[in-house]
């Protein structure tokens, strides 16, 4: 009776195998749209992104009746859209990376301390997190923008501010349960101090969570940065950030749609790819499936 074996098992195994395989398409998209342009825009961009070609203003993309000199068309000053988008990738990547690094480091440290110390420290830190959840990011950046003018620092501060509380909460929750585990008691019996327990025993066990959260937040931050730039309170002009490119195209949306469309498409592809990648990473690092 060969048919006794249920056909479910191999299908499940296949699904698990598929999950273990890295997602090729999102990775390739990320490379093409974000990472390579961010690192090598000067080499691959056909034009200087700041250079106006006044005779070629508002050129449509090549496949829409334009010329191959400006594959994705030009804006109202005749600047090459493809070059501008490629150069914008650097802003998207660097701001999200630096902002997330700051936010994750700060938030994880707060979460570790709150969850480990408990008591009053925990209460104070978590109320601070609640406050930062309640404050709209746009309001904060407006205030900073008014005080300092639009600047990179203001954007990074807002990004870190939006992120830290999420990291703090998540990390705190895991630390609360980890600190009661027997391996922490064993470490204390061995003579380990609080710092060693936090850094050698607890932090490595929440590290996966931090990495996955950071990955999933990249998309959020790229959108946040674009929003701030779109509103004119992000990175100052003439930097070709994707949000600014979209904002510049707004008044031509009916006549020269490509100015807003392609930066928007770049954001869409990047955020989608990052989220797919983050999902895969989360599955990969799930403690129940984990083989270390």
């Amino acid at each position: 009776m060969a048919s006794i074996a249920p056909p479910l098992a191999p299908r499940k195994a296949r699904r698990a195998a598929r999950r273990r395989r890295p997602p090729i398409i999102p990775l390739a998209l990320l490379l093409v749209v974000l990472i390579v342009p961010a690192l090598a825009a000067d080499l691959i961009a056909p034009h200087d992104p700041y250079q106006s070609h006044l005779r070629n203003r508002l050129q449509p993309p090549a496949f829409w009746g334009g010329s191959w000199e400006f594959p994705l068309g030009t804006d109202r000053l005749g600047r090459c859209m493809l070059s501008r988008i490629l150069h914008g990738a650097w802003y998207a990547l660097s701001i999200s990376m630096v902002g997330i690094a700051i936010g994750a480091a700060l938030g994880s440290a707060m979460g570790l301390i709150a969850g480990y110390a408990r008591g009053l420290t925990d209460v104070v830190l978590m109320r601070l997190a609640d406050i930062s959840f309640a404050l709209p990011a746009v309001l904060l950046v407006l205030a900073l923008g008014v005080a300092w003018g639009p600047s990179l620092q203001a954007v990074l501060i807002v990004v870190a501010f939006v992120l830290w509380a999420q990291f703090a909460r998540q990390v705190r929750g895991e630390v609360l349960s980890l600190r009661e585990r027997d391996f922490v008691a064993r470490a204390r019996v061995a003579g380990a101090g609080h710092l060693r327990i936090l850094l050698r025993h607890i932090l490595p066990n929440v590290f996966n969570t931090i990495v996955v959260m950071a990955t999933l937040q990249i998309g959020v931050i790229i959108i946040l940065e674009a929003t701030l730039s779109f509103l004119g309170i992000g990175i100052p002009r003439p930097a070709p950030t994707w949000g600014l490119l979209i904002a510049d195209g707004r008044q031509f949306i009916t006549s020269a749609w490509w100015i807003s469309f392609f930066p928007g498409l770049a954001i869409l592809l990047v955020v989608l790819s990052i989220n797919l990648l983050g999902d895969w990473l989360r599955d990969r690092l799930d403690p129940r499936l984990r083989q270390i």
Partner: protein
Amino acid sequence: MDPGLTPPRDQAALQLRAERLTRHFTFGGGLMARGAGTVRALSEVDFELTAGQTLAIVGESGCGKSTLARLVLNLDRPTAGRVLLNGEDIHAARGRALRRFRRQVQAVFQDPWASLNPRMRVRDLVAEPLDMQHRLPRSEREERVAQVLQRVGIDPARMHAYPHEFSGGQRQRIAIASALISDPKLIVLDEPVSALDVSIRSQVMNLFRDLQEERGIAFLLIAHDLATTAFLAHRIAVMYLGRIVELGPTEQMVAAPAHPYTRSLFGAALPAHPDAGPGAPPLSGEIPSPLAQPPGCAFHTRCPARIGPVCDTQRPVPTKVGAGWSVECHLHAGTEP
């Protein structure tokens, strides 16, 4: 080998002493709420333990065994009373004294899946008590790790692996190796075999026994099964609702338990031989909540041998019923020789 022939240095000096050790947990005492509750997890517990001896603490779940273990390990502080290690109050120890305490007292926990950090290599887990004392050169450190791993029956070549690469029994051996590396005088064994397969329990229990003979280590064994206890312990302390109701030498106590609760507890275990008659009748009723302990003898609500009103109102005092054998029960009051 006679363990008395080669006593490691100053080991004969080891003496652990609990004096009226008490731990109450209060809860619900917020700013507004006045009616806080108190759980009397441990009340006025006295015992002594010397080198080369094993004292078992047995009782049902919730009787305070684990609280006692945490206090002796200095993971928690007593509400009253104290624990003395060679005359020094362990909960008052700071700095160097605390480091000395940590070196002398180690622990093996129940679940070897939970007690080994999955993110550390076996080498670092085992060496941790050593690292906390002094920095050793790498080769010397690995040498020490290899020695203890060898001793507990783990291939030292695998010290660079992670805990998940080992079976449950092997993991418990790794935990034991770690407890041994600082050459401790006392190891608290918190249900050290109850998470293991029955087939490997006896191996691990034999290992404990051999280690004790070799090194004269004292064990404080927290257990709830009688087989482990009778095999390893020289003396047994039976706990009920945070009190030691009977403490005495293993053989005599197993043969003729004096306290009605001990009788029931031992009677509930399977006899060692199938032809042996049934033990004492099983207890009926629930353990009273440690929140609202009954007055008088804590056991009177379930006691099959209750004498009368004296049990309900008067707390029995410890009474000697033999050499190193005392019972808290009115049945034995006044029988003191």
